[in-house]
């Protein structure tokens, strides 16, 4: 093995190879020459033919999915064999592993793109204006024009109210918890952190059942949108707390010390230095939590219950929600409702996507322009000399540089 000379186009890490092994940047083009591309393409092509013959001609199988799996498997085998014959076994292992890793990642990206694209393609064509203005109270399956008389306005109103209330309770609590974990510290930190992590894995249906058992079963309340908010609150609290805590952790300790050294109290430091620095990250955390809450279905069975009519009052009476109405449509597939299901799925997914993109955009590192604007603002505020004006100036710049470095 050690005497095998590598072909000039590759950078096999054979002993004595003068070329330094790549560090940092993966798959540098130099490492992957024309001959390597040839091996790759040839393996792909011949494994395709092989599997095609075996799969469709000899065993008469069917299904594109199975074909792809077999093709991939035989491609990896062939690729490994050929590379280890021509170059080196270690290189072969390396290449096959790279291929595996790249496929794994593209599989995930592909599935996400597929789901989003599929829902958009199926749903966008069925969305009509009346879906946003009407509810399901005039639904009659026999009516041929039923799609013009029904809609999911009641569900949209329900979702917005339930999620809004949940977020209004959850975000302050989450921020306080995160500040406690990261700034105040103390003996309970470890316990609280463990509990928060464990809560983040709480099955959503259990949260719903819990709210049901505590309020509905004991006849303290009847089904209402407000109960759904409580269940959603339990669900998004841990995720918002964890993300906020991570954002707070990257606030540089030097800023806190500077603020404390200038004589600010601990509360003042957190309120005027730490939280403003972490503001964009906290907005991201909150919006991501809201995006998750919008899509939760299971807890709503027991709390909002669902309702075919418009009920704008979250405090009284059963209320509908988008995921819940979508599940109803899927589970009772009456011809007309399938199209409505696709349209609802599209509305729901676009809501989640908008929140998600908004979270990303707002959470991006500030641009130079924004930094200058912030600096100007702090200059104009200089007249009301308070103890935190000076660090705020430094803070904007350091926050930018730190956010740039962290992924």
């Amino acid at each position, binding site marked *: 093995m050690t005497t095998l000379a590598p072909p000039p186009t590759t950078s096999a890490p054979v002993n004595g190879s003068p070329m330094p092994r790549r560090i940092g940047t993966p798959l540098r083009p130099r490492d992957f020459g024309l001959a390597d591309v040839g091996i790759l393409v040839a393996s792909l092509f011949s494994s395709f033919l092989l599997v095609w013959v075996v799969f469709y001609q000899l065993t008469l199988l069917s299904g594109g999915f*199975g074909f792809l799996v077999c093709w991939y498997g035989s491609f990896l085998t062939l690729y490994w064999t050929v590379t280890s014959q021509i170059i080196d076994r270690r290189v072969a292992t390396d290449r096959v592993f790279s291929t595996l890793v790249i496929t794994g990642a593209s599989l995930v990206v592909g599935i996400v793109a597929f789901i989003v694209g599929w829902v958009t393609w199926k749903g966008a064509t069925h969305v009509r204006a009346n879906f946003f203005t009407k509810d399901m109270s005039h639904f009659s399956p026999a009516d041929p024009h039923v799609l013009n008389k029904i809609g999911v306005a009641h569900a949209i109103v329900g979702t917005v109210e339930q999620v809004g209330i949940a977020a209004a309770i959850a975000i302050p609590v989450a921020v306080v918890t995160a500040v406690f974990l990261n700034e105040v510290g103390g003996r309970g930190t470890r316990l609280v952190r463990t509990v928060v992590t464990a809560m983040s894995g709480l099955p959503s249906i259990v949260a719903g059942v819990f709210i049901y058992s505590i309020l509905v079963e004991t006849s303290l309340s009847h089904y209402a949108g407000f109960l759904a908010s409580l269940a959603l609150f339990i669900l998004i609290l841990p995720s918002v707390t964890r993300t906020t805590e991570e954002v707070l952790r990257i606030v540089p300790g030097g800023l806190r010390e500077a603020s404390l050294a200038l004589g600010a109290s601990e509360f003042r430091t957190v309120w005027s230095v730490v939280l403003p620095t972490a503001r964009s990250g906290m907005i991201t955390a909150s919006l991501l939590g809201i995006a998750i809450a919008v899509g939760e279905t299971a807890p709503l069975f027991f709390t909002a219950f669902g309702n075919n009519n418009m009920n704008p009052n979250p405090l009284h009476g059963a209320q509908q929600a988008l995921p819940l109405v979508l599940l109803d449509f899927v589970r009772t597939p009456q011809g007309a409702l399938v199209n409505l299901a696709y349209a609802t799925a599209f509305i*729901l997914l676009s809501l989640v996507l908008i929140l998600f993109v908004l979270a990303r955009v707002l959470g991006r590192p500030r641009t130079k322009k924004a930094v200058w604007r912030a600096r100007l603002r702090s200059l104009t505020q200089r007249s009301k000399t308070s103890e935190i004006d000076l660090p705020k100036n430094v803070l904007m710049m350091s926050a930018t540089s730190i956010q740039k470095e962290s992924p």
Partner: protein
Amino acid sequence: MILFLIGLFLLIQGFPAFHVAGWSFFTSSGFQTVGKTKHFGVEASLYGTVVVAVIALAVGTPVALLTALFLSEYAPKGLRPYLIACVDLAAAIPSVIYGLWAIFELQPNVVGISGWLARHVAWIPIFKVTTPKVNASLFIAGLVVGIMIVPIVASISREVFSLTPPGEKEGALALGATKAAMIRRVVLPFGRGGMISAVMLGMGRALGETIAVVIILSETFQISPHILQSGGSTVAQLIAIHFGTGGPLGTHALLLAGLVLFAVTLAINLAASAIVSRSRSGAGVDL
């Protein structure tokens, strides 16, 4: 505090059902709570829950770990933020949409494989099929849940992998290791604790997944090792489907089932988070 309350209230509310059924709640299955013969239990549902979670992990974990490795070691710098956002987005897609997608798009494609396995490798017991159909099976439910847990496992493992000391990685490369060898010898051993806990958190999610399972799986109460055949049951599905159908006793029984699910996932998650908090680092970023 909230966790404690949840446990307490579920215990109180589930107790009447336990009073009726006794320990047979765990050794019988079905949901017959009205009428003379009361017969209900979670045995088959617990079994189905575990099977779905195991399939989900078998499908999801390799893909998730490969994705995490790609994000932390392979991805080009410019592409990385977008890919991370994409994985996060996968976690934010509502489970009801996963379910919708699975029943209309995934299932028709996978049924072919199920059928083939059932016909040709039926000598392996788990692939044997005794029902005429192979759709709506535990296998397909597990597959969907597996896809759903990928983003969770991937994002936690990515964080752990990216904490690997760069000096050790570069040292391995400088000694002539290939990238694959470096990952196997340096990155994976370093991130083992985080990986284990990521998988456990994913498992907690898989155990509690409701909606996708409700949409895919057709409910039958039977304990059979044949994962490809139609029908099965999970605890979360049991709660979701039978809610409001079984009278007062039924409600209590479902709350008891909820308590069981809660206890199982809580145990797993506590163990996972204990491992995570032990391997936590990078707390002090300074100027």
